[in-house]
């Protein structure tokens, strides 16, 4: 119709591309301590604005501020620092091992260590995480042996999943860490099902679901929200918004809503946004949401605002799609340094002790790697058996697989 101007397609673009000078001054960041902490039985509709804010505890001076502070003792906080430092050291070694050809693939957590490390400490034994590939902190913080993680990364003869999975696709029922799938988002609804099962069984365990910003566009995300909302499942639904999905900035998945937490509003569930680089804030919010779930108050959606400092994986080179120095400009800082400064300010830590801890942790990781390499690396040394490929497809091997195993000569 002639009186309407022609339409055109809106394709969102990040503000910065390679060559641009990083500038995040337009990102609104509330002051630490400024966001209120509602009671856990709050009505979701009374806290809608929490989906558009950012809960923060640690300020620039390293102080813990406001109503969300105080969920951890100094000792627990020190343990948290160690977990994050361990994960970072582990990442560095494994990244290197991949470059050395000791395995096929690796994925780092750089900048996001607080999210999984702090969350884990809000859970109780028996609870179950349904993680993505970027939450190995859940394992580290639960005391899962680094050697076992490395055995998995190396796909060696001691690999707990017998060489069947891509590196970093860990699994540990004992440590409440559900087997990782390479198909994005699928585990989000499974977590809701697990939580429903706990409720059906009149248990007190809760589940925790994990997803990346980009993956919220998937079907399973929606199914999870629908089921969690309808059956008031005891589950915490975690979105790790690290700003990127491989080369795609978060605006493509997010669209016109200001935040990912806002997705929860359409389902009548409490939706919180938290500074993902603030160990104390993550822990406090996790504890709040976990307690809600365990008290039968239903699901909570939590968005962790963080930044993927490293490449997506060892197959990726981010300099092709974002400014090289973007991560330095990221306004929420480094989770390790922030927590370290806080502990120094508390008087329970110092630069020297930090350096010393770094060295100790590094030694521990190197020792674990030596140990793991005794069991082989992807192309050298001990290997999972070929028989293992035919076993475990079913509980009992059916005749056709037995025939195939024989054909394979194993």
């Amino acid at each position: 119709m002639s009186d309407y101007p022609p339409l055109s397609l809106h394709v969102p673009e990040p503000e910065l591309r390679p060559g641009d000078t990083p500038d995040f001054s337009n990102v609104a960041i509330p002051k630490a301590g400024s966001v209120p902490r509602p009671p856990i039985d709050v009505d979701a509709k009374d806290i809608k604005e929490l989906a558009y804010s950012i809960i923060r505890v640690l300020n620039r001076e390293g102080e813990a501020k406001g109503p969300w502070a105080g969920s951890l003792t100094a000792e627990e906080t020190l343990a948290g620092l160690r977990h994050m430092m361990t994960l970072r050291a582990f990442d560095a070694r494994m990244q290197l091992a991949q470059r050395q050809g000791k395995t096929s693939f690796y994925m780092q957590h750089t900048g996001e260590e607080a999210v999984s490390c702090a969350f884990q400490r809000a859970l109780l034994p028996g609870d179950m995480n349904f993680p993505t590939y970027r939450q190995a902190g859940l394992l580290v913080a639960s005391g899962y042996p680094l050697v076992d993680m490395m055995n998995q990364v190396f796909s060696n003869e001691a690999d707990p999943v017998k060489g069947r999975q891509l590196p970093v696709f860990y699994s540990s029922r004992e440590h409440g860490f559900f087997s990782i799938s390479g198909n994005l988002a699928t585990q989000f609804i499974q977590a809701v099902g697990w939580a429903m099962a706990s409720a059906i069984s009149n248990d007190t365990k809760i589940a925790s679901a994990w997803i990346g910003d980009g993956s919220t566009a998937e079907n399973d995300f929606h199914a999870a929200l629908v089921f969690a909302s309808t059956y008031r499942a005891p589950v915490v639904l975690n979105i790790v918004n690290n700003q990127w999905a491989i080369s795609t900035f978060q605006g493509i998945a997010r669209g016109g809503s200001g935040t990912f937490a806002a997705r929860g509003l359409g389902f009548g569930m409490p939706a919180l946004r938290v500074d993902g680089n603030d160990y104390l804030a993550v822990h406090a919010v996790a504890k709040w949401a976990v307690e809600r779930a365990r008290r039968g108050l239903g699901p909570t959606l939590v968005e962790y605002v963080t930044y993927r400092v490293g490449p997506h994986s060892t197959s990726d080179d981010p300099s092709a799609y974002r400014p090289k120095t973007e991560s330095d400009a990221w306004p929420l800082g480094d989770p390790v340094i922030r927590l370290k400064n806080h502990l120094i300010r508390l008087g329970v830590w110092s630069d020297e002790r930090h350096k010393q801890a770094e060295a100790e942790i590094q030694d521990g990781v190197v020792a674990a790697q030596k140990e793991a390499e005794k069991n082989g690396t992807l192309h050298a040394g001990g290997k999972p058996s070929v028989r293992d490929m035919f076993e475990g497809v079913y509980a009992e091997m059916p005749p056709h697989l037995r025939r195939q195993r024989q054909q394979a000569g194993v």
Partner: protein
Amino acid sequence: MPRMTMIEAIRSAMDISMARDEKVVVFGEDVGYFGGVFRCTAGLQQKYGKSRCFDTPISELGIVGAAIGMAAYGLRPCVEIQFADYFYPAYDQIVSEAARLRFRSAGQFTSPIVVRMPTGGGIFGAQTHSQSPEALFTHVAGLKTIIPSNPRDAKGLLIAAIEDPDPVIFLEPKRLYNGPFDGHHDRPIMPWSKHDLGEVPDGHYTIPLGKAEIMRSGSDLTVLAYGTMTFVALAAAEETGIDAEVIDLRTLVPLDLETIVASVRKTGRCVIVHEATLTSGFGAELAALVQEHCFYSLETPIQRVTGWDTPYPHAQEWDYFPGPKRVGEAMVAVMEA
């Protein structure tokens, strides 16, 4: 022994399983209060409560995905997809998750779920109430796939499926729910109460997965069939007078290759029948296996009689459905070739 329809037999299987094991839970669209659009779950919510039998949102992905999570927790979900034509939204959860969980976690997590769905045509249900998607499951390592053809088998196989440690796809030929159907749509309907296979033991029993049944022994040729096609094949044998050995496969994966091979080695001729479209249907796998294992016994080429490679039509249903006439013609052709 009581006589039951296939619906009653399936309901009885779930009822008995829920009574024996409180880990068994049943859910799906319209499955709770109402008892399912085909009434297979009628009364279960009333008997076992809302948290063991309940309605779900219309999300097949959600149904299967939640079931996988529940199974990982330790429950035994037996879920319903309202029609097999609607499993596609759940396919990722079935293939990438349920089927691979045991393997990829080296047994730490398993997925003992049963996914029930009415399958097949013959009810003027057109494209979206008539499909036979079994081949889309048989290609997936880690799944077991069952299609019973009668009340007795349906109950015993469903109980076995619920007790099985692996994910099972349980396809229910909806045209058989109320009586055997031999493809003669213009003849009076026979109810299960008039048929021997409608005799179903009241209590608990299982029929092992992976065992076919010879529904008619014969020496001229072997017909491999399952679901509704079992009765079509029996009718075709009767009408052509060919002494066919009619085998109801019952389980497609794992397959009872032994029974198949023994029969074809004996008869030297083979016709394969299914409702699904021809290309890459499960009949292709059967033909490939039979020629591999019975090559030197085969006297004529194996013939497949199947749905055509078109979407399932509405008005042309009886031209699409592989009825006794088409099956009989193939049998004659295989004898004469």
